[in-house]
């Protein structure tokens, strides 16, 4: 008998994507819970969106991330938080852009530059717009971020700048780390799950 093991995949890519999307949404959620358990200094609830984009393409990552926000908005966070789904779409878009540009090799300096510029500086401008327009801006209920907000507000009196710096302070660490985590995991995933070309 031949010792060769042949993998059989009787299902189409469309149905794999349909099952992959809720898995991405659930991984985002559980990622946030693990962060709480380990007391890691990140949010940890967007890496699966990036991972979904790297393995399933833009739509799998974006819909998985958006779905996560919808579930959270319908349960724990309150309806207006559904708008953060667009932040997950932006995250997936940046990941897709970086993937297409070949900036997913962590040994290349360009990957690190793009990661910090796109996720650490550009992306917070988007989240600042949402947080002011939908949630009125204001301090986060994380002590360090709230302290940064207060310092910028009291020294400049600029409400928008205080919100931007507060968001940048949290995102510039969280999102690049999430990207690195996703790239590391994506490298370890069996080829049969990679739907993205």
């Amino acid at each position, binding site marked *: 008998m031949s010792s060769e093991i042949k993998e059989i995949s009787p299902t189409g890519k469309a149905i794999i994507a349909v099952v992959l999307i809720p*898995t991405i949404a659930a991984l985002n959620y559980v990622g946030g819970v693990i962060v709480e358990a380990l007391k890691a200094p990140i949010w940890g609830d967007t890496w699966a969106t990036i991972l979904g984009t790297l393995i399933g393409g833009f739509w799998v990552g974006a819909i998985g991330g958006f779905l996560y926000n919808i579930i959270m908005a319908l349960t724990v966070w309150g309806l207006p938080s559904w708008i953060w789904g667009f932040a997950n779409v932006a995250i997936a878009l940046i990941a897709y852009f970086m993937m297409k540009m070949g900036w997913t090799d962590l040994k290349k300096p360009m990957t690190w530059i793009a990661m910090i510029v796109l996720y650490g500086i550009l992306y917070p401008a988007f989240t600042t717009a949402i947080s002011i327009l939908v949630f009125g801006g204001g301090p986060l209920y994380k002590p360090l971020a709230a302290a940064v907000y207060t310092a910028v507000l009291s020294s400049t009196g600029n409400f928008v700048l205080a919100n931007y710096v507060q968001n940048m302070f949290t995102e510039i660490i969280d999102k690049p780390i999430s990207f690195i985590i996703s790239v590391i995991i994506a490298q370890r995933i069996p080829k049969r799950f990679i739907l993205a070309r």
Partner: protein
Amino acid sequence: MSVGVSLLKKTAVEADTFVQRLDGRVKFLYFLWATVIVYIFYDPYLNLIFVAVTLAMAFYARVAKPILQTLLIIVVPWIAFAVPILALPFGFPWNKTIIGYIDVFGNKYPVYLEGLGWGITWPLRIAVAISSALLFFLTTNQAKLVATLFKMKVPFKLIYMVVATFQFIPLLAKEAETILQAQVARGLRTDVGFVAKIKNYLSVVIPLTLSSLNKVQIRAITLESRGFSAPVKKTLLYEARLMKIDYIFLSLMFVSTAVLAWVYVNIGYSPIAGLSWIWGG
């Protein structure tokens, strides 16, 4: 385990009250309606009334405890941070009306109405949104949820994704807990620095992701074998239909909307607190 997971582990509470008997679409409409109303007005007292009404229904439906826990974890700390930072002279640009002074170590600081109003009203808006959403989620079982979404013409694949996410979250949370315990048993230290904590995070999420991706294919095969993609009309376990109680509830919402519209036009956006409008508020 976080309140979020313990909450999403809960299925709907089965009790024979009018809240459970209400059609899912009516409860979903209440959730949307209450959220929109508190965003149109700018009044913390009105928000409190909505929270109180929703909590009263939640108590009656025996689902008040998880809702109160969530409000305590999300809304109370938010108010606790926002009120002192915005109401005291830390530069909130719309502050102008002094309502009193606070004595800190012999120094007197003014307390501003605009910052205080903002710091209470916005979190309470979210409190209304959270409590009404949870009332819908915790009193509508999954079969009814599917039927509700189906009646709302949501595509079947999207309905599957929503329901599957609700099912996957507790499963993955349990698996993550098992992986974490296994890693701790083989020497993973949790009282470590910044970089080591990120490494710890990786040591849990890599096995979790690989294991959940392995299950993706099994689930896909199972769905196909049950004719998920078959081009036939889908049937449901539960048929959603509006009853007398749903029409009574909808009528109450309609009357309340008419009263609130009158209040908005004749008294204003802040009828009880009398707050002045600030940008972003």
